C-alpha cells in the first residue's frame, strides 16, 4: 500500500542530501571538534559551517548560535536559563496557554521553585492578544516566552509586535520557532528576538539535534555543566553528524523557502476545499489566514480522532489528532481547549501537516478516502444519530 505522510509537524522525512551528509560524517568525520589535530579541525569546520548557516537564516551572528539536542532542550535552556539569570531583577515570567509542553512544563517546574508565571489566553483563532500581554508586564517580569507558530493549529503569533513591546519594556524575549524556522522569514534584529529555539527534525533534518539562538548580552545561567563547549552554556562533545545534518537541512530550506511555502499553501488549500465540499459538519481550528502554510486542523463533529486516525491508517494516510483518546494523559489538546473549543470538538480534530514532497495526487486520494472514513465513524456515533433525529424533528 502506498503511504501518504501528512504529519510533518510531528516530524519530517530526512532529505536525501541530509542523510548523505550525516552518513559521511558518521563514516569519515569522527573527530572530536574540541581537539587540535586534523580530525578535530575537520569536525570543528563542519560544526562551524552549520553554525554559520543557521545564523545566516535568522540574521544572527555565528557566536550567538548554541547547538542543542533539539527543540525541547532549547526551550528548557532558554526559559530556565533566563529565569535563573535574572533573579536579581525579579521572578515573573510571561508565556501563553498554547505553548509547547517543553515551555509549559518548564514554567510549571519553575513555579514550584518560587517563580511566578502568567499564562496568557488566546482568542478563538489561537492567537495571543498583544494588549493583554502588554498589560501583564510588570517591573519584575524577566522573560516573555511566546511561540512563533503553534504546532497544532499553525496559527502565527504576532512575534514582531511582542518583540517591540519586550524591547520597550526591557524584558528578554524568547520565541519557539520550531515550526517556523526555515518556513517563514525570521530576522532576530528586525523582530527584536533575544532567544529562539530550533529543531532539525521538523525541517527534513535528523532527530535529536537543534539550536538555541541567544542574543549577545542576554543574561542567562547554564542549566548543564561539565565542559567548555558552546560557550559553556551547553557542554558535551558535539554531535557532529547531527549538527552537519542540521546545516544541510538549513541550506536546502533557505534555497527555496518562498517557492516551497507557496507549494505547501496550494496543497493545503486543495485539501481544505476538497474536505469542505465533501464533508458536512466540520470546522477549521486556527486562524483562517495568518497561519502556517503547511498546517490544516479540522474538527469533524460527532466522531473521535483516534478512530479516524486508525481508519485513515488503513488507507495508508498518516495524520494526528488533538483528541483526549490519543494522548497518554487522556486530556484533550490544551491548545484547542485554550481557544475555547468544547472537549467534543477537540475530540474530533485532525491535524494535517504537509511537507516537501507531498503531491496534489496524494491530496486527491485523501479527499476520496476521508468522507468514507468519517461517514463510517459517524454511522456508529450515538451523537450523530441524536443530531439527525433533532434535525428531522425540526424539519
Amino acid at each position: 500500500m502506498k503511504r501518504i505522510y501528512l504529519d510533518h509537524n510531528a516530524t519530517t522525512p530526512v532529505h536525501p542530501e541530509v542523510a548523505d551528509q550525516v552518513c559521511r560524517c558518521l563514516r569519515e568525520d569522527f573527530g572530536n571538534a574540541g581537539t587540535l589535530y586534523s580530525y578535530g579541525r575537520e569536525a570543528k569546520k563542519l560544526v562551524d559551517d552549520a553554525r554559520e548557516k543557521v545564523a545566516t537564516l535568522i540574521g544572527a551572528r555565528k557566536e550567538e548560535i548554541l547547538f542543542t539536542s533539539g527543540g525541547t532542550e532549547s526551550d528548557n535552556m532558554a526559559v530556565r536559563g533566563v529565569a535563573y539569570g535574572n533573579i536579581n531583577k525579579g521572578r515573573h515570567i510571561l508565556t501563553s496557554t498554547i505553548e509547547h509542553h517543553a515551555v509549559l512544563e518548564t514554567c510549571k517546574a519553575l513555579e514550584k521553585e518560587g517563580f511566578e508565571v502568567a499564562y496568557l489566553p488566546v482568542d478563538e483563532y489561537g492567537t495571543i492578544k498583544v494588549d493583554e500581554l502588554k498589560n501583564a508586564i510588570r517591573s519584575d517580569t524577566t522573560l516573555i516566552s511566546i511561540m512563533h507558530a503553534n504546532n497544532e493549529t499553525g496559527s502565527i503569533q504576532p512575534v514582531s509586535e511582542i518583540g517591540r513591546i519586550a524591547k520597550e519594556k526591557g524584558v528578554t524575549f524568547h520565541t519557539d520557532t520550531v515550526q517556523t524556522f526555515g518556513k517563514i522569514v525570521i530576522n532576530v534584529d528586525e523582530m527584536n528576538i533575544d532567544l529562539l529555539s530550533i529543531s532539525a527534525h521538523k525541517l527534513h533534518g535528523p532527530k535529536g539535534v537543534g539550536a538555541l539562538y541567544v542574543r549577545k548580552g542576554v543574561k542567562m545561567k547554564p542549566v548543564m555543566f561539565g565542559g567548555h563547549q558552546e560557550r559553556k552554556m551547553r557542554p558535551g562533545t558535539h554531535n557532529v553528524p547531527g549538527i552537519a545534518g542540521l546545516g544541510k537541512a538549513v541550506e536546502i530550506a533557505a534555497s527555496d523557502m518562498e517557492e516551497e511555502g507557496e507549494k505547501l499553501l496550494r496543497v493545503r488549500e486543495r485539501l481544505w476545499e476538497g474536505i469542505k465540499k465533501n464533508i458536512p459538519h466540520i470546522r477549521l481550528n486556527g486562524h483562517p489566514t495568518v497561519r502556517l502554510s503547511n498546517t490544516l486542523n479540522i474538527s469533524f463533529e460527532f466522531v473521535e480522532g483516534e478512530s479516524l486516525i486508525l481508519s485513515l491508517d488503513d488507507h495508508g494516510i498518516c495524520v494526528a489528532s488533538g483528541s483526549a483518546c490519543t494522548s497518554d494523559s487522556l486530556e484533550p489538546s490544551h491548545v484547542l481547549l485554550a481557544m475555547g473549543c468544547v472537549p467534543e470538538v477537540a475530540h474530533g480534530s485532525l491535524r494535517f501537516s504537509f511537507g516537501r514532497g507531498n503531491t496534489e495526487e496524494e491530496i486527491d486520494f485523501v479527499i476520496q478516502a476521508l468522507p468514507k472514513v468519517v461517514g463510517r465513524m459517524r454511522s456508529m456515533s450515538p451523537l450523530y444519530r441524536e443530531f439527525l433525529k433533532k434535525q428531522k424533528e425540526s424539519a
Partner: protein
Amino acid sequence: MYSEKVMDHFRNPRNMGEMENPDGVGKVGNPVCGDMMELYIKVENDVITDVKFMTFGCGAAIATSSMVTELVKGKTLDEALKISNATVAEALDGLPPVKMHCSVLAEDALKGAIEDYRKRKVESKV
C-alpha cells in the same frame, strides 16, 4: 499498539447500529476522556436474544463495544452480568494499559442495559 483482534473488531464491528424497540438500553459516558457508548438488548425468558451498540470513542472503545455484544448474545441476564471489563479485554487479546478504562465503558453499558430492562419489567408489572 493494538492487538490484531482489537483491529479486527474496530474494522468490522459486530452488532453495530440502532435497535427498534429495545427491551433495555444502557447509556454511559466516560468520565476519563469524555466518550459515549449505548448498548441495546432484546430479552426473551431472561436470555439476551439480540444486542446492538453505538459508540463515540476511540478504537478500543469501539472494539470493546463490539466484543461485549458478541460475548453476551445468547447468555442469560445473570450470566451476562458476570462479564467484567477484564473479560472483554482478555477476549480481545488484551488492551494497552492506558486503554483499559474504555473496556469499563463496555461493562457499564451492558450493566446499564440489563438494569434498565429489569426496571422496565418491574414497572410494567405495577
